[in-house]
């Protein structure tokens, strides 16, 4: 007969059981505590990274647009510590044929055998976009040079032909002129075109754009953007957030505003943005972007707190002279 003997082992006493439970509780609490800390750490890190990323995006996008401003050319329409409206150049080319009577100009093809990059844009110009064309003036002297402003009445993509860019212009070679190598024809308004706009004159395509720190319907503050074209309805698009959320607007003295613009002239003197005459003197724009995390986190061992970060970028205007 099989007899099972429990090896002389005694059962757990209540005290032993209590001790085990307490020890397990302590260990469990420790593990849970570590896990919670880890979770908060991860959440905080993610929050910090997201905040930084938003700041960096703005600091990368906005300077690219600001850099091409010609303050002396009247590109800045309005400016303040939290907003700026200006002509944003989104492309350029050169004139290959100018037809004063029919009020159009055409450009060389985008791809050229010689490898010259005459035409480049972030998007094909559209009707109602604006154009500036270099006018060499009646003399060869620089003193009578100017930029003439027109609106695009129509944009036509033409098969490559000598009508729109002949080899006599010097800008293209015979191999460049094929039907597949498209050329752009721009009908301009108002007429007449300046008669002194000549072959090789530089073209700039631009739109009026507006950036500002604004509070959206969700209560957060974002950097908003809208663009305007005369002739379209409505003239200006509705504001759209392109980055954020950032800190709420505050006066420059507070030093906490989510997006803050400062303006300086060529000597480094700060300019009062409310003075209209200062718009033509801007040589440098300082952009400060400040963001605050959405949750508590602890990365520095200083206890849980919302993360704050900021980035300052100085943009020297390339077309100041």
């Amino acid at each position, binding site marked *: 007969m099989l*007899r*099972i*003997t*429990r*090896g002389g082992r005694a059962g757990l006493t209540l005290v032993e059981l209590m001790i085990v439970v307490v020890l*397990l509780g302590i*260990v*469990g609490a420790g*593990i849970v505590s*570590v*896990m919670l800390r*880890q*979770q908060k*750490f*991860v959440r905080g*890190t*993610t929050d910090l*990274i997201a905040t*930084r990323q938003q700041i*960096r995006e703005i600091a*990368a996008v906005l300077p*690219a647009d600001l*850099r*091409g401003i*010609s303050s*002396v*050319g009247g590109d800045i329409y309005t400016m303040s510590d939290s907003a700026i409206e200006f002509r944003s*150049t989104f*492309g*350029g080319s*050169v004139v290959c044929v100018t037809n004063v009577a029919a009020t159009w100009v055409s450009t060389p093809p985008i791809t050229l055998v*010689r*490898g*010259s*990059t*005459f035409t*480049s*844009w*972030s998007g094909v110009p559209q009707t109602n976009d604006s154009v*500036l064309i*270099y006018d*060499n003036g009646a*003399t*060869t*002297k*620089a*003193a009578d*040079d100017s*930029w003439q402003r027109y609106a695009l009445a129509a944009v036509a993509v033409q098969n490559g032909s000598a009508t729109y860019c002949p080899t006599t*212009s*010097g*800008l293209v*070679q015979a191999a460049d002129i094929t039907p597949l190598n498209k050329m752009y024809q721009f009908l301009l308004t108002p007429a007449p075109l300046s008669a002194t706009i*000549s072959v*090789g004159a*530089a073209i*700039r395509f631009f739109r009026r754009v507006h950036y500002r720190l604004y509070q959206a319907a969700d209560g957060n503050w974002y950097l908003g953007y809208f663009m305007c074209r005369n002739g379209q309805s409505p003239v200006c698009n509705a504001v759209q957030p392109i980055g954020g959320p950032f800190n709420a607007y505050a006066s420059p003295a507070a030093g906490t505003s989510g997006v803050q613009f400062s303006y300086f002239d060529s000597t480094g003197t700060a300019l009062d943005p409310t003075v209209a005459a200062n718009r033509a003197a801007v040589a440098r724009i300082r952009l400060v972007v400040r963001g605050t995390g959405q949750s508590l986190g602890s990365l520095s061992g200083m206890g849980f707190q919302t993360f704050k970060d900021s980035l300052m970028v100085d943009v020297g205007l*390339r*077309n100041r*002279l």
Partner: protein
Amino acid sequence: MVRILKSEKGMALAMALGALVIIGVLVAGAVWAGTQDYRIAANTVRQTGAEATAELGMNRLLATWQTSWNNGKPIGDTLRRTYTMSYGGTAVVTATRLPNNFWWVASEGQTAGAAASSARRRYGTLWRLNVPDMTLLGAITTQGTIKVTGNVTVNGNDSTPPGWPACGSPTNVAGAAISPTTTASVNGSATVNGNPPVLTTSAAGDSNTYFNYGVTNYQTLAAAATLTIPGGTTLTGIGPVVSSGQCSTTPQTNWGDPNRALAPLPPGPCESYFPIIHVTGDLHVSTGSGQGILLVDGSLVASGTFTFTGVVIARGSLQSTGNGNKFIGSVMAAGVNVSDNSLIAGSSGIHYSCAAVTQVLSSTAYPKQAMQRGWVDLY
């Protein structure tokens, strides 16, 4: 038979493993997020590096610009340069000549590293040759008294030297332009032609006419001189110097070659050399020929068979004597001293040439960014 239970089932190991897994996942998440942050930051650094490289490339081309390129290439032709930066980035700069003294420059900056881990950025700039806006009132313009005697020809009617490109909008100017406070005397068989032959104008008495040229001035041109010659120098035998088929610009007597080889002959090596010659005092020159801009801080004395094509500006006077001196283009003698009276004698000739002036001024100019909107982002 006695069976002894030696093991007990428990939760500790499972809990520990579970906790480790959860902590591992959380840590991995944090590492992933941190890596993403690092990558974004690294991309920003690379992008900024590419931008700086593209701009540095453009500036490098500008800093090393050679005036022989100004008119040395046909319209539409390109000049390509690759610059490797000390930090490893590379800029490929393409400059295309446009009509009317313009150049279109595109620079593509790329940071070092494999294509997948580098960044590119392109910028473009419209450059305009910084051509001096000189007010040339006549074949000769002087503030002091001018005496024309002997078998001299002074002609303000425009003419183009053989083989030189024609001027875009030629106009006739005065033969001699003088200040209202001075006189011009014509003696002997001298002839003065132009529109009018002699123009008395206050502009000839204005020092700005002689020393300020719109975008630049006399001092700036002198500072950019190709050749600087001490005052009091006497030079003879001015002419092109060719070494191994190349124009040798080292000798102080090489002032380029104004005598164009006509087709089908190939152009001379020094035909495209247009020096700015700055003399820091008086200059005495005889025999030979040259082209360019001649700036004389003192007076210029030409004593025979010397030909110069281009622009001559003397702070003092012009003394042209002997036979065969010829100035084609325009001459200005500021006569800054009361005693600076110009004398054109012998069989000298001064002929206004829009073509010579235009070619020389554009060939000695350095480019600068065109006004207001020269710079543009390329996509």
